[in-house]
């Protein structure tokens, strides 16, 4: 053995050292990332880690009132599904319902009460305590009340039903203010008004699509946005495939193909604004061809005289053959149903259009018949205030009142009029004239930005409430909304805020509104309903009923129909038939296109734009993700030399917007369609500064009878600006490129 020199030894030790360090680093490299095991500080009572609990509650992403069930693990909401026992949703949800988790965990939620310390609208908010915030509001309102100026306090809410609605009404009543209103862009005011005129009941009946054989839809995108899309989608499935050997047919009449149009057997792009005329033309063809045999046949003939298929054909741009054939199919099928909505119910003669469609339903005798129009019974709740929904005209009145200084305190709950009303209405400007604007809001939107005081509200997943869905399902139904997880942040459910304000204001308010919490109030009201229905008028079994109702999330009385099952007389319908052609803002020579704004299945009227899942969901018809676009017919676009991505300047008599063009084959030439929902100036990181809001260029025309905004009655001119933008979409090309995927055809594109 040779001796190792001192020098070599040091080298060996060095090598060993390097190896050892390498070994430690290797060990460090292969070991799993350190994870922490975080215990609860104080565990909740019914907590079992790793085991999911499902709680039933009510969705609030639109006003359909679907029952949902939420998966909770370790005290956190993980997933939303439909409540299987709820008659509206029957275990299903839509994309917006799923995205409810995005609202709950949204990073842009308002976490504490805030006060504006800068100029109105400048957005300089500082955090304050709840005590301070409630004292500010309470003292102001009670002073106005003492001075006898309670009417200068206004409450404007989004669409609210159930006992929260009653709570609002009671609060304003006790205050002595007559100004409790709701504003919801999607509220079907024209349909309700038309039903009052035609049938004598102002309600949304149950449109029994499920059992119909033939569905004729005038602009109602019942699968995407109309009234109760989840329920209608279930019904559509049944209409198509639910009955052995029988496949229902659907026909969609609309200038721009919606989700429902794409699912229909036939899509008829009638001239915009003439949908009601087409309905009367079909009615004329039914009566004229002897397909209606009622004793009042002559009256019908007279009333419909002016609407012969040939005349209507010229005005609607639908061939006489089609009108006559649809009339035949509509009256030949056993259960035919006609519905109206969307742009067809948003012209200047919207009510007349829906009345015309109601006439079709009458003529085929489907009122209160399976597969027809079934009138809903009274609400399951007996103490509901009448509808406080403000029409566009009433919103203009509110703007005037604010401008003239009549409004001292404006409470805004969960509605965004600055976004959902055209800019030129001046709601934002008018808000500057109000001494104290209090925003009750979960998110910081355009309206909240103008507030002096922000009171953060909890989401529906953290709040108590209840709901009687509208439209119902033909029998009394009521759902309970319960918190599925503990409240996040320093936000409070809006009902509890109102109760706190009542205590703060004092006087008779806390005496009448004595409930300590919304939970107590809801339970109290349900107890009253229970007692009024109990055979012995006692509440001894109420607790077990309440527990069962909470668990199921819904209570209903299938089979109990307390509405009048008789068929309304035709006299009122005949008398109300009026010319349903819509007028348009802007003359045709200057403004060559009809603007067709449409509610989207993702954002609805824009309220969903702050939810990232919805932002990244491709539009179901065009596959576009993010941003806004304007749809043009390929032929029109070709004539104008416009390609996809060309930024267009779209100008109406009311204003102009810039938006990239999208060539969309399923739109009528001469129509430009722009989705509603994007174009937020505020509303959090996902919504802000993305796309444009077409509502801003809608001219202030109204429905003649209701004063609702005729948002589909604006003409525009379209001009390419020369700039371009790449539209992001998931679909590749819309051509088949010779792949023959549409079957053996001679498609050369």
């Amino acid at each position, binding site marked *: 053995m040779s001796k190792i020199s001192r020098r*070599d030894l040091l*080298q*060996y*030790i060095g*090598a*060993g*050292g*390097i*190896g*050892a*360090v*390498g*070994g*430690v*680093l*290797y*060990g*460090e490299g292969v*070991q*799993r990332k*350190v*994870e*922490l*095991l*975080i*215990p*609860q*500080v*104080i*565990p909740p009572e019914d907590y*079992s*880690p*790793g*085991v999911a609990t499902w709680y039933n509650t009510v969705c609030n992403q639109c006003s359909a009132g679907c029952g949902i069930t939420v998966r909770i693990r370790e005290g956190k909401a993980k997933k939303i599904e439909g409540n299987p026992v709820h008659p509206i949703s029957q275990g299903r949800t839509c994309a917006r319902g799923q995205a409810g988790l995005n609202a709950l965990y949204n990073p842009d939620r308002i976490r504490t009460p805030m006060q504006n310390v800068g100029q109105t609208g400048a957005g300089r908010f500082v955090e304050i305590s709840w005590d301070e915030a409630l004292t500010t509001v309470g003292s102001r309102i009670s002073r106005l009340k003492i001075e006898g100026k309670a009417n200068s306090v206004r409450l404007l809410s989004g669409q609210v039903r159930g006992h929260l609605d009653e709570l609002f009404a009671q609060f304003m009543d006790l205050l002595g203010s007559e100004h409790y209103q709701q504003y919801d862009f999607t509220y079907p005011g024209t349909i309700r008004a038309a039903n009052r005129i035609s049938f004598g009941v102002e309600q949304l009946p149950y449109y029994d699509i499920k059992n119909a054989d033939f569905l004729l839809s005038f602009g109602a995108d019942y699968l995407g946005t109309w009234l109760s899309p989840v329920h209608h989608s279930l019904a559509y499935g049944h209409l198509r495939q639910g009955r052995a050997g029988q496949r229902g047919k659907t026909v969609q009449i609309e200038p721009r193909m919606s989700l429902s149009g794409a699912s229909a057997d036939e899509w008829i792009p009638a001239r915009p604004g003439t949908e009601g005329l087409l309905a009367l033309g079909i009615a004329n063809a039914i009566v004229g061809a002897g397909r209606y045999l009622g004793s009042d046949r002559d009256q019908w003939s007279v009333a419909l005289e002016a609407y012969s298929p040939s005349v209507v054909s010229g005005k609607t741009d639908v061939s006489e053959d089609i009108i006559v054939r649809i009339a035949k199919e509509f009256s030949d099928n056993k259960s035919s149903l006609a519905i109206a909505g969307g742009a067809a119910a948003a012209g200047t003669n919207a009510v007349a259009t829906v009345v015309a469609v109601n006439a079709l339903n009458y003529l085929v005798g489907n009122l209160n018949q399976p597969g027809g129009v079934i009138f809903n019974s009274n609400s399951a709740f007996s103490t509901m205030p009448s509808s406080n929904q403000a029409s566009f005209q009433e919103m203009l009145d509110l703007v005037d009142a604010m401008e003239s200084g009549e409004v001292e305190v404006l409470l805004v709950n969960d509605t965004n009029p600055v976004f959902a009303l055209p800019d030129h209405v001046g709601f934002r400007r008018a808000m500057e004239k109000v001494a104290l604007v209090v925003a009750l809001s979960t998110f910081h939107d355009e309206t909240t930005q103008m507030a002096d005081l922000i009171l953060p509200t909890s989401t529906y997943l953290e709040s108590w409430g209840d709901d009687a869905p509208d439209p119902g399902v033909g029998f009394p139904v009521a759902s309970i909304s319960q918190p599925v997880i503990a409240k996040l942040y320093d936000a409070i459910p809006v009902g509890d805020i109102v109760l706190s304000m009542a205590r703060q204001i004092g006087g008779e308010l806390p005496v009448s509104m004595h409930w300590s919490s919304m939970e107590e109030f809801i339970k109290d009201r349900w107890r009253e309903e229970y007692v009024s229905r109990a055979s012995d008028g006692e509440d001894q079994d109420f607790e077990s009923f309440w527990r069962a109702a909470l668990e199921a999330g819904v209570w209903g009385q299938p089979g109990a129909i307390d509405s009048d099952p008789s068929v309304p007389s035709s006299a009122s319908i005949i008398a109300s038939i009026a010319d349903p052609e819509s007028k348009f803002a802007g003359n045709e020579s200057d403004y060559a296109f009809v603007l067709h704004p449409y509610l989207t299945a993702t954002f609805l009227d824009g309220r969903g734009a702050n939810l990232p899942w919805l932002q990244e969901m491709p539009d179901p018809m065009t596959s576009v993700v993010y941003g806004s676009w304007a749809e043009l017919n390929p032929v029109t676009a070709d004539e104008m030399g416009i390609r996809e991505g060309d930024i267009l300047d779209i100008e109406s008599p009311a204003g102009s917007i810039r938006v990239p063009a999208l060539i969309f084959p399923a739109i009528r030439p001469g129509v430009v369609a722009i989705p509603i929902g994007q174009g937020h100036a505020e509303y959090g990181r996902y919504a802000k500064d993305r796309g444009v809001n077409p509502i801003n260029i809608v001219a202030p025309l109204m429905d003649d009878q209701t004063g609702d905004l005729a948002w589909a009655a604006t003409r525009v001119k379209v001009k390419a600006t020369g700039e371009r933008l790449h539209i992001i979409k998931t679909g590749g090309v819309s051509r088949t490129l010779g792949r023959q995927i549409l079957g053996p055809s001679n498609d050369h594109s």
Partner: protein
Amino acid sequence: MSISVLEALQPAKKPAMLVLMVVVGLFVGAWVHGQYFSDRSPIQPIEFSHTIHATDNSIPCQHCHIYADKTPVAGVPSVAKCMGCHNALPGVRESKEILKLVTYWENREPIPWIKVHDLPDYVHFTHKRHVKAGIECQECHGPVETMDRITRVATMRMPWCVDCHTENNVEHGRDCLTCHK
């Protein structure tokens, strides 16, 4: 006349020794890491001793890990649970480690324990089934009651799972979908 190979290799001897030393060093380093620095036995925010609790004071496992027979996870006791006993014990506030616990409790903060036994997310393991089948905690977790610092004794990797399933003839014990679903 003999030709020695060793002679010929003489010039390569030193580099070979150096490489050998590096390799030995690697093993030593990896072993030291595994023994003293690894996730097998990490230093916890509080020097909690199972010996004191489980052996000296004979507290059964499920007194603290209350979910083991009910849910997929055994459950690390809540801070409130720790304080439930420690609040009532005389003189506990004098120990340095227990004072840490008291601080967490008074700040209403959870103790950030470091996970020692962890399975990847694609493994559906449930304590409930194993406890109900009568398997002792120690069979997987080792003699925890003698550990002053918790140390992982099993690999917690798939062959180890499957070996036990095979030995015990577990029904569907070798079916992929039993654990990966």
